């Protein structure tokens, strides 16, 4: 939703109180923002900058308060575009100056947070301090007296813990009247040493006991954060994980596949109307069932990500990667965005908001889709199973698992390399910004949290299947089944109308989908893709998993008995390669590489447009990634073809 010039028509209500929310990144500011505004937030862009703007309304006592979640900053002395935005919005001359400012302070790092507060108080606006992570502070044997802190600061202070609705309600009421908030009698000093003195004095008066790093965390971190050992441990963990996916998920996957196969047969037998049976068995069950098989993989992937997050290991990984990312010109925080992209590039792109530098943000956004997202997983699983027999082993490890791991590694390396190139191309002013992050203590995973994220992921996957994948499957089925070939036409073409397989193949080869596929085919022919694969690729632009659905439909259309085996034996239907095996190892390798690099997801394109503020960047992403995919597939096909055949 944007008008011309890509300026966000951000929600403002005449006469409503306007509050600005500022705080360090990761201080829990956005969580608070969500708690205050519920789902009433609109996303836009600040004019001229690639910084997303979040404005929402909080409803309290029948009135509305407009709250703006300003980008996380460490100080109001801007050194990056985001901090610039905050400084400008809060500036005296800004027409957008809020009526009051809420400063979110992380109670476990008050020494640092109060620095930002001291800057904020210079603005002369009514200021309210909210202390977050109170529970974390208590858990780490720290403490603070909020009432005493309020006295010392001269402004109101509220301590909150995430998830406590009553506190948020209290805060909301306070927001109605910023003019009534107490103000400090003298603004804090401005020189660094004086500010530090002020902070120390205030914290002493507030009886502050800083949080301690708990011992267990420290000891574990001595190993897991070790620059070499820690990194190796991470790689080993990821490797073992992919092994598990194939050993544990595969049998479940087969069960589901068999189940759908049986269901499809049942439908074909019992549904009298031919075309309906075809639609149900082929279009819906065949297409959608083919994708649903991969729920075990999805569930396992999110289980892993959830465990990382819940135990606190995720932050360590980001820290370890920081050094590596540094070589690509990025920082550890970019890694979090990239790691999120393993689930789906859309939240990964949105996670780039945490990057202080707009250049970093853009470079990360444009390359995060190269990370192996969960939608690629079904495609990879299918192709790898076709390429490598399940019994194959490298030493004690299943080769299939090894190849999967390699594909994920390829995605990661590709993303970093591309990011490096982007940073180089986008080079401009600005020093390297410091990166530091809070490491939460290690804790046992919250099974509720992890279970929740696995459930959410599966649910989102199911929704995708029930939504866009189902729609595309039906559309494809229609396009593959029309026009219905008449018997005369077939006889004239030399097809034996009693041979069901031949009839089905002719039908397929002359359908609308075939027409479209064959028109585009020349582009992909050097890669060894025929029109069916081409149609699959085009359909996959809506959702990558649809490729699997397409292949399932195409093979079911030809021979409904055993679609799985059909795939490996598919041959070219017409043209110069007629009769040759379609899925040669070279072609499969090429397909794998194509999927690794191509941008095939309308949701990602939409997210890129939203976060970057224009169509220019998603267009560039589409072009460069498709080109990369084509070239990689070509090389892959050549090399593997030469090696194996």
């Amino acid at each position, binding site marked *: 939703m944007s008008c011309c010039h890509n300026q966000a028509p951000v929600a403002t209500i005449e006469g409503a109180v306007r509050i600005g929310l500022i705080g360090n990144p990761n201080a829990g500011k956005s969580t608070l923002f969500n708690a205050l505004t519920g789902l009433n937030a609109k996303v836009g862009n600040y004019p001229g900058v690639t910084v997303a703007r979040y404005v929402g309304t909080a409803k309290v006592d029948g009135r509305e308060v407009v709250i703006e979640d300003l980008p996380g900053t460490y100080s109001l002395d801007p050194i990056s575009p985001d901090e610039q935005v905050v400084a400008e919005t809060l500036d005296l001359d800004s027409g957008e100056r809020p009526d009051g400012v809420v400063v979110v302070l992380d109670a476990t790092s008050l020494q640092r947070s109060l620095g930002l507060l001291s800057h904020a108080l210079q603005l002369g606006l009514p200021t309210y301090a909210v202390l977050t992570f109170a529970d974390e502070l208590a858990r780490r044997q720290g403490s603070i007296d909020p009432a005493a802190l309020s006295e*010392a600061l001269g402004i109101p202070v509220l301590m909150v813990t995430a998830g406590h609705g009553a506190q948020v309600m209290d805060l909301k009421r306070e927001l109605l009247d910023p003019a009534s908030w107490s103000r*400090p*009698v*003298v603004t804090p000093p*401005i020189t660094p040493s004086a500010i530090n003195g002020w902070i120390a004095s*205030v914290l*002493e*008066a507030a009886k502050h006991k800083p949080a301690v790093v708990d011992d267990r965390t420290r000891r574990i971190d001595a190993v897991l954060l070790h620059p070499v050992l820690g990194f190796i441990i991470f790689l080993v963990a990821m490797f073992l994980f992919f092994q598990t996916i194939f050993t544990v998920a595969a049998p479940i996957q087969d069960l589901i596949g068999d189940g759908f196969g049986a269901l499809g047969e049942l439908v074909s037998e019992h549904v009298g109307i031919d075309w309906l049976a075809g639609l149900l068995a082929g279009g819906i069950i065949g297409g959608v069932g083919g994708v649903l098989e991969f729920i075990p993989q999805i569930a396992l992937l999110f289980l892993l990500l959830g465990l990382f997050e819940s135990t606190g290991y995720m932050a360590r990984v980001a820290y370890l990667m920081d050094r590596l990312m540094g070589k690509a010109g990025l920082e550890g925080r970019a890694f979090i965005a990239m790691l999120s992209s393993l689930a789906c590039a859309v939240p990964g792109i949105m996670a780039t908001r945490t990057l202080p530098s707009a250049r970093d943000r853009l470079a990360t956004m444009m390359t995060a889709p190269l990370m192996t997202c969960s939608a690629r997983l079904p495609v990879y699983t299918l192709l790898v199973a076709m390429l490598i027999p399940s019994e194959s082993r490298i030493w004690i490890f299943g080769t299939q698992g090894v190849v999967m791991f390699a594909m994920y590694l390829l995605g990661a390396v590709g993303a970093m390399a591309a990011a490096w190139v982007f940073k180089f191309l986008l080079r401009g002013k600005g020093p390297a910004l410091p990166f530091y992050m809070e490491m939460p203590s290690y804790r046992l995973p919250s099974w509720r949290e992890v279970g929740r994220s696995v459930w959410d992921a599966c649910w989102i996957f199911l929704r995708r299947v029930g939504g866009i994948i189902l729609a595309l499957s039906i559309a494809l089925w229609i396009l593959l089944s029309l026009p219905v070939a008449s018997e005369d036409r077939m006889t004239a073409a030399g097809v034996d109308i009693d041979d069901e397989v031949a009839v089905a193949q002719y039908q397929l080869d002359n359908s609308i989908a075939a027409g479209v596929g064959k028109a585009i085919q020349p582009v992909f022919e050097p890669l060894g893709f025929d029109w069916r694969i081409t149609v699959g690729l085009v359909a996959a632009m809506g959702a990558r998993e649809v490729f699997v659905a397409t292949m399932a439909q195409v093979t079911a259309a030809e021979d409904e008995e055993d679609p799985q085996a059909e795939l490996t034996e598919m041959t070219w239907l017409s043209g110069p390669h007629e009769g040759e095996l379609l899925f040669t190892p070279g072609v499969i390798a090429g397909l794998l590489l194509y999927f690794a690099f191509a941008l095939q997801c309308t949701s990602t394109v939409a997210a890129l447009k939203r976060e970057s503020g224009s169509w220019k960047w998603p267009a560039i992403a589409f072009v460069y990634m498709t080109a990369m995919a084509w070239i990689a597939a070509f090389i892959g096909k050549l090399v593997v073809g030469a090696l194996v055949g």
Partner: protein
Amino acid sequence: MGGERIHPRRTGDPLTVRWVGVELGGVGTVTSCPGALGEWLASGRITAITAELHSVWVSLACDEWAEVGGQVHEMLVEVQHHVGEIGFTADAHLLERVTDDVLNSSLASYIASHGGDIRILDTDGDHVRLDMGGACKHCAAATLTMHGRIQSELRSRLGEHIHVASDEEHESIWNRFRLRGRATTV
């Protein structure tokens, strides 16, 4: 950091600010001091400077704290380097003022949350007498509040020689047994 470990606080008077953390090396009214602070004091721009052990009350004549706060901050930091040159006289009203501050800011919420209503009856040198009213009147822990909290807070701010006592009529049985013939060591 040294003398910069300070922060300002409002008092009941808009012209007076208490600077917590300032240590001038003495207690009472400041009669003379070196540097810019001394100049302001002498010229009357600052009407009074009264020191506790770890904070100082500064009253302006007519300037706005919002405007000169930063300057006063710097002057206070500076003067702490020259504590030997500061002259003091005893301030008879200081004890009352500090007790008032303790009762109405630091301990106010504690007292109120227990339903207490404590007021100053009178002060005499180092002694202050309180009227423990409200719920405090019949509370067995009144002495504890008085000595444990109020007295210790006053002593930390003005020195160990401060004594807090309550009106005798309000002594409970426990207090009578404790006070007879024995020094309370709370």
